[in-house]
């Protein structure tokens, strides 16, 4: 058993000796067993972003009353250039918005849509939340992992089949509820919906993607690639009006979505009729 020799008194104690008294500073680099070229440097990373991206980043910052609000869209913009959020991308956002890299990293690592490793041409997200899972979502995810794996090792969450950046490469992930429960089990490719899937249809889909084909989604725009949709999530849409309309007008009217409205139309059910001119209520003027 030990007894306390002296109870420390609260408050700061002035040091009796300063570090200066210990002598001159030691040249830590000089005595380090690691060679200088192997040490971490503070030099800024070379920016892979061109002047056009800088202009777009500034346009994003100008959209908001306070520029920091542009951080989420800007991280999407970074992903649209590089296919993931790299350390250079973090530094870029920090520089554009006057934030430290630590502040940007804190945000980038919080949100699941920001990928910290290079993504494939396509991102395949399988809903494995309870309802989809009960309807077959778990089986779809398992089957895709096995199908895309190599040497008997299934492909895991956020792993890529093929080489990122090359055509036909696919990153897979299990996703939380994708808000299409009436159409479950669902999956998304680059956030376009593929509804009412089965393990077989999902395997067929990824095989087509691997071959470089782009099967049309059930709901959404014609399939492009992960980088292109990240650009739209950043808030930049096709300049060409026709291309833009084709994307916007991509299908959405699934049978399931319309079921209630259709049943009402078939049975002649409606909401109560509105009066011709219902006045706004009278209130005392303030």
């Amino acid at each position, binding site marked *: 058993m030990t007894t306390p020799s002296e109870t420390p008194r609260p408050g700061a104690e002035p040091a009796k000796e300063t570090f200066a008294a210990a002598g001159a500073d030691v040249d830590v680099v000089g005595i380090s067993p690691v060679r200088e070229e192997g040490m971490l440097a503070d030099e800024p990373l070379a920016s892979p972003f061109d002047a056009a991206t800088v202009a777009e980043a500034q346009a994003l910052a100008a*959209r*908001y009353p*306070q520029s*920091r*609000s542009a951080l*989420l869209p800007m*991280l*999407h913009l970074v992903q649209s250039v590089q296919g993931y959020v790299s350390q250079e991308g973090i530094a870029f956002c920090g520089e554009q918005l006057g934030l430290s890299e630590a502040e940007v990293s804190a*945000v980038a690592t*919080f*949100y*699941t*849509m*920001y990928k910290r490793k290079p993504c494939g041409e396509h991102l395949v997200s399988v809903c494995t*939340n*309870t*309802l989809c*899972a*009960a309807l077959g979502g778990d089986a779809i995810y398992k089957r895709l992992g096995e199908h895309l794996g190599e040497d008997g090792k299934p492909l895991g969450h956020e792993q890529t089949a093929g080489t990122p950046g090359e055509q036909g490469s696919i990153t897979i992930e299990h996703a*939380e*509820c*994708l*808000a*299409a*429960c*009436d159409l*479950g089990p669902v999956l998304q490719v*680059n*956030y*376009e919906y593929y509804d009412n899937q089965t393990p077989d249809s999902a395997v067929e889909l990824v095989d087509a993607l691997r071959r470089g084909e782009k099967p049309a989604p059930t709901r959404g725009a014609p399939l492009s690639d992960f980088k292109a949709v990240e650009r*739209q*999530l*950043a*808030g930049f*849409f096709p300049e060409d009006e026709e291309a*833009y309309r084709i994307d*916007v007008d*991509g299908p*959405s*009217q699934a*049978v*399931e*979505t*319309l079921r*209630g*409205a259709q*049943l*009402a139309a078939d*049975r002649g*059910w*409606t*909401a*109560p009729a509105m009066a011709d001119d*219902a*006045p*706004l*209520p009278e*209130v005392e*003027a*303030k």
Partner: protein
Amino acid sequence: MTADPITPVLTKRWLSPQSWRLSTYEDLEGYSALRKALKGSPEQLVQLVKDSGLRGRGGAGFPAGVKWSFMPPNEDKPHYLVINADEGEPGTCKDIPLMMADPHSLIEGCVIAAYAMRSHHCFIYVRGEALHPIRRLNAAVREAQAAGYLGADILGSGFDLELTVHAGAGAYICGEETALLDSLEGRRGQPRLKPPFPAAAGLYAAPTTVNNVETIASVPYIVNGGADWFRQMGREKSPGPKIFSISGHVERPGQYEAPLGTTLRELLELCGGMKDGIPLKFWTPGGSSTPLFTAEHLDVPLDFEGAAEAGSMLGTTAVQIFNETVSVPWAVMKWTQFYEHESCGKCTPCREGTYWLAQILERMVDGHGTEEDIDTLLDVCDNIFGRSFCALGDGAVSPITSGIKYFRDEFLALCESNKRELVGAQA
């Protein structure tokens, strides 16, 4: 007077070809409510929404008009209107089809609500994974601007409104209104301590109202039809129509817009009953954060009071239906894994609690559970419920406590083979 079983209001244009276009919307009374609203005063609109009894459609059911009236009458600081379109509650799939099918109804609602709250900048925070709705909204904003429904001096009224569509990046917690505001400010989406409430200090510490998509999209119809018309649907304290999203083991899952107070028995009739006739086992009235119901609850009126009186919550009216083939402990485990993943990490009960709950449930489902695990689960739940920073923690324990309440036998059955053998008890 009783309303029809289905009352298409929000969904009435969904069958029209290219329902998302401005031309379709204008052909079907679109923007007529805005013209009427701009002739009235902001106070009249707040009173109208109060009179209608419209309650928040995002889950909490707070009276929308009352929320609006919290906004200060002066404009010392800019006022903001923020639309919560971060639909992510498991089972919920109403706002995403609405924004795809009829984005202009949301935009018209935004302009009216912003006018009523003296706001000149509105943000629609859309879940990032909802790419197609984001496209449709952006296209609709562009159309509305060109037609003079947005921007400066809207329809010659002198009222200005800028509308920004903002994509999130994948975080369930951002559906919590103060976490959403932090996220919109470019930060990690973590909830804020209330008070101050957003109406006092919200976005950029300025007066802010956060409303759900379905709530705001209901406003143009209330302006056109009046409070009495709206109250012809639903029940006294929960008036109006509501989009019920029916998913799971039924014959015809889908979106059914019915008056509040409709029962599951009635909804099942609309959607063709249980799939292949396999009996109902359990269901959620409004997403996974609302305590489970069973076949005993077929006649519970699904409105804010009815669901609460029966021990659950109306939530988002995301009706997920599971038949007898589904294991309750497994379903509860899957939901718990979701909450563990989505806990933002800010407060200890939720961050640590969901982490342990998920591990215990995983072990039980894996066949290594003991009876004590059930008590431990309930004990951990008790330490999360009401002790977490925001409603995510409360939601996380809902499936567990209700699952054990109604299906304790199933949890016990998982432990049967792991009973400790007492020495001498075999004889």
